[in-house]
């Protein structure tokens, strides 16, 4: 009997008026894998992330996390249930320090159980170990007292990744984490995503940077016009003529 997937989308649709942004998508993310979601602009990738994290309600279908239906849960409850995300256009708390950005994000189920008083009224010391480890991992420890708004672009991207991890998610949704990064930063990002996965976090990655996708994804799902047109290993997706037609381009065009 196969293991229950971390996340399952069952015939999920989202229509905005007459626009079928997502149209009957089935998708299962297995525990511990990196699943990349690719497709042309406007194909519904970000909408799927927004549906999973609960930004807006589904038009049809169900979303199941760890066997539990989360389709009607409010956004904040899904975080303690184990889903965290980053944003395509960075949304940090600019006037909070780097440290505080991670501190406020400690809302996992486990962190909630540590006791109301300590969780809300403890000083910044009460969170020290966890925040420090995360900052260290993202090479932001020396910036811990800086306001997030004053960080360089690459640092802000790292901080957002770090903030999403602070809620100790089982499933992490990364929405174009490599956008605007240079080659060296993408290399570091590649390493960090792998390490996070090795720590037991399942990752759903949306990305246009194909080199990164092909290098780290265990499986790839391809969307076009709100529908899933292919799913499989990087090699099989790359070889798929439908995908080439819709998104990757034919060899002659490259």
């Amino acid at each position: 009997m196969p293991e229950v997937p971390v996340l399952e989308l069952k015939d999920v649709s989202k229509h905005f008026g007459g626009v079928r942004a997502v149209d009957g998508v089935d998708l299962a993310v297995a525990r511990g894998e990196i699943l990349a979601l690719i497709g042309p602009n406007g194909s519904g990738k970000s909408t799927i992330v927004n549906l999973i994290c609960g930004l807006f309600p589904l038009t049809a279908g169900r979303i199941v996390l760890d066997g539990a239906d989360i389709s009607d849960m409010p956004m904040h409850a899904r975080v303690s249930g184990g889903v965290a995300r980053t944003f395509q256009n960075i949304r940090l708390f600019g006037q909070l320090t780097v440290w505080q950005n991670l501190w406020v994000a400690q809302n996992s189920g486990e962190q909630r159980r540590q006791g109301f008083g300590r969780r809300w009224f403890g000083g910044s010391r009460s969170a020290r170990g966890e925040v420090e480890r995360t900052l260290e991992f993202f090479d932001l420890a020396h910036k811990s007292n800086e306001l997030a708004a004053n960080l360089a672009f690459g640092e802000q991207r790292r901080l957002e990744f770090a903030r999403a991890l602070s809620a100790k998610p089982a499933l992490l949704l990364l929405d174009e984490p490599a956008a605007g990064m240079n080659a060296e930063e993408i290399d570091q990002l590649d390493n960090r995503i792998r390490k996070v996965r090795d720590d037991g976090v399942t990752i759903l990655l949306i990305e246009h940077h194909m080199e990164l996708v092909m290098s780290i994804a265990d499986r790839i799902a391809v969307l076009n016009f709100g529908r899933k047109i292919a799913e499989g290993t990087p090699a099989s997706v790359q070889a798929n003529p439908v995908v080439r037609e819709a998104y990757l381009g034919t060899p002659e065009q490259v």
Partner: protein
Amino acid sequence: MDFYLGLIQIIGVHTLLGLSAYCVLLTGQVSLAQAGFFAVGAYVAGMLTVLAQWPLIPALAVAALVSGAVACAVGFPALRVKGLMLVVATVAFGEAVRLFFFNFTYQIQAGTLHLGPHGAEGFRQIRYFPENGWSTLDVVLFIWTVVALVMAGLWWLDHSRVGAVLRAVGEDELAAQSVGINITAVKVSAMTVGGFIAGIGGGIFAHYTTHIEHAQFGVVLATFAIAYPILGGLSNVFGTLLAAVFIQGFLIEGLRFMGDWRNLLFGGLIVLAMNVRPRGLLDAGTTRALRRLFAPGKERSGA
């Protein structure tokens, strides 16, 4: 001398009013309901000491709880709307409270006197301080003790995770939700604490003026309430205190010699202050500079 003591009383009570708006503003909500909570606190505390003969401190505590409960009840529907709509909703609430007290009469006979709120005439003879032999100086000390306690409490909250969460909600509600913060709970809690503090302020106000009436709790007072934290800056509670001193002490009393021109200058100076210091009189940069001045080298050590 009494003039200055009176002024210091006003500044103290208005600091409390400003702090009540400070809590709410941290979450990014502009509420003009604070004068309404202040009014509820004033009437409840006054009725408890005058009609029920309670001592002052329990009366203030109950007034604060009642105002906090009202704020919580107002918070749920009001905070579903945002921005300008929230301003309109809270103004409407403030006016509803004012009109309630405009029509509210509950009097008892005590000898030849009629005691208690009497509709449009207001609520006279809240004589707890003179009856119990408090001098003006005693009252001043009492008010500022309360102000200090409230400021200390808010300072502590500001430096706990609560403060960071309130500010996170104020900055970006969507991002706050995406990291697992229940923004409705946070905003309603902030409103409740704000109502609680406004209730204490109103209760004290009723007792040192000895006479309250509906007209004192209108939109002008509500505007003052949010002007203090906005002018003072939201980086910490001392900004609100500074702004209350600046507005009440300098702009209102200090410019009295200018007669009717005062109001014009008053508005002009506020606009000027906001232009020179857009993040408030006491912004994060100034706070950091002051800290460096008094404790050089400690800046980097804490988180």
